[in-house]
């Protein structure tokens, strides 16, 4: 009974977020997201004409620093966390679908 967001829009947003959902997950998620977005819409009751946005509440403004390269000497340790690495590089699959090459 979605009326604020429908199944196709949920799939579109999932694509933007680099997520995918099964049909069963979409069935569950769509009405849930719709309800939550309905809750979001209660904000329209608040008069915000002429009100500025708040994007952060830090008391620091425009903190500058020198842009100096610093060698942490940790490339080995960092590569240990990579799912796949060889000869000092992170390995990733081909950008082009490998199954097409092999077809």
């Amino acid at each position, binding site marked *: 009974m979605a009326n604020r967001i429908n199944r196709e829009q949920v799939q579109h947003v999932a694509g*933007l977020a680099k997520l995918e959902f099964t049909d069963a997950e979409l069935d569950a*998620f769509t009405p849930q997201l719709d309800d939550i977005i309905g809750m979001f819409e209660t*904000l329209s009751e608040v008069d915000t004409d002429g009100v*500025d*946005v708040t994007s952060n509440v830090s008391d*620091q403004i425009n903190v500058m620093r020198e842009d100096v390269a610093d060698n942490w000497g940790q490339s080995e340790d960092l590569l240990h966390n*990579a*799912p796949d690495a060889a000869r000092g590089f992170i390995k990733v*699959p081909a950008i*082009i679908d490998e199954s097409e090459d092999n077809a």
Partner: protein
Amino acid sequence: MNYFDKDLASLHADLVAKKLSAKELTQATFDNIKATDPKIDAFLNLNEDAALDQAAKIDAQGINADQPLAGIPMGLKDNIVTKGLTTTAASKILANFNPVYDATVAEKLADAQMINVGKTNLDEFAMGGSTENSAFKTTKNAWDQTKVPGGSSGGSAAAVASGQVPVTLGSDTGGSIRQPAAFNGIVGMKPTYGRVSRWGLIAFGSSLDQIGPMTRGVKDNATVLSAIAGHDDHDLTSSTQAVPNFAADLNDATSVKGMRIGLPKEFLAEGVNEDVKAAILAAADTYRKLGATVDEVSLPHNKYGVAAYYIIASSEASSNLQRFDGIRYGYRADDVKNLEDVYVKSRSEGFGEEVKRRIMLGTFSLSAGFYDAYFIKAAKVRTVIINDFKAVLKDHDFIMGPVAPTTAFGIGDEIKDPITMYMNDVLTIPVNLAGLPGLSLPAGFSNNLPVGMQLIGRPFDESTLYKAGYAFEQNTDFHLEVPTLGGQN
């Protein structure tokens, strides 16, 4: 070691006098954890060998009177990175992540010679209010193991409440220190935004996140906050304000005399459980007896906090969590045909349901066509909520109210109903939106479950909250109650 009868000052005195060694204390902490964690499930990962080594080194050097935290064990929420010690954020996507650096707070506590005994459970990426969203296990409430410990810092709260360890750190984006502290009958501080460096805190909502201490008593909490606070070149939102010795001021149990306290009528409105309401009204009487004035005040836009927060926090999360793509670290899906597959399948398999829900809400709120109606609107409502607080705090020293509308709910009761779960944060969220400090402390019981009181202060005025918290604690007995583990009381 029975931490229920000890505070940091008495442990410190014993360590300095060599009645107790750091190694004995650390070993006793692991014994506590091993005895009770099968029931509580507070810890994800113990740091046993390194902790005992560090304790032995501290013993060899000796502990001086000016090192109040040296040799004292503590635990860290597992979204705070620790060099060489697996840090998961309770997510499958980081199950094997081994950080190459320490968070600033971990470094500062190590400099104070505290001993890190391990990493505590949380809702995945700190998203949730029950710790049921952990990919690894559900932590139980220290007072009743059929109840949730709250969240997202549920492991940190239950570990302190069950007497495993005297100090933990949590993080609070919308109530994640204060609500589990309340549910477990302990003290939790969400400091002013910028008071504590976020460097090394795995980011959720960067304009809202703060790290803070969780302890059994107010003074202990104050001692730890002084140790972790301060400007950090690695976090340019961290404040350059001087850090007081918060605990030094806590000697006078009547220091609230002459203070003006605001009690917002919205904090006792419908939806707040009768016992919780009664505990807060009784606390107001306690403050009146101590010579404070308690006025009814209004935060008229409080109820819009939840909606504004779930737009802002989810938007920030959807951006922060883009880094989890299966390339440089973390989980990578098998059975992928191309690079796009790595991103989509790693994220879809690696993130849990609540995290995906937040990423979806945030991506939606930031997407073309919806950005103005949702994200910008929420950012404006945030300003309106900040102005409500400013108006009250202009002529009140602090605000008091409940932490949460109810006491701890049952495990499994709310996890399938996101909106009900989100509404639990209605009294804590506005404090994060405004960047204010919020202190949670024990203020009563309802059906043998703790009720928490929240004190909200002006920016960088944690000091007043600690004074008021200390005065309340010294004039009440709630903090002396301890859970009977496994006995269901």
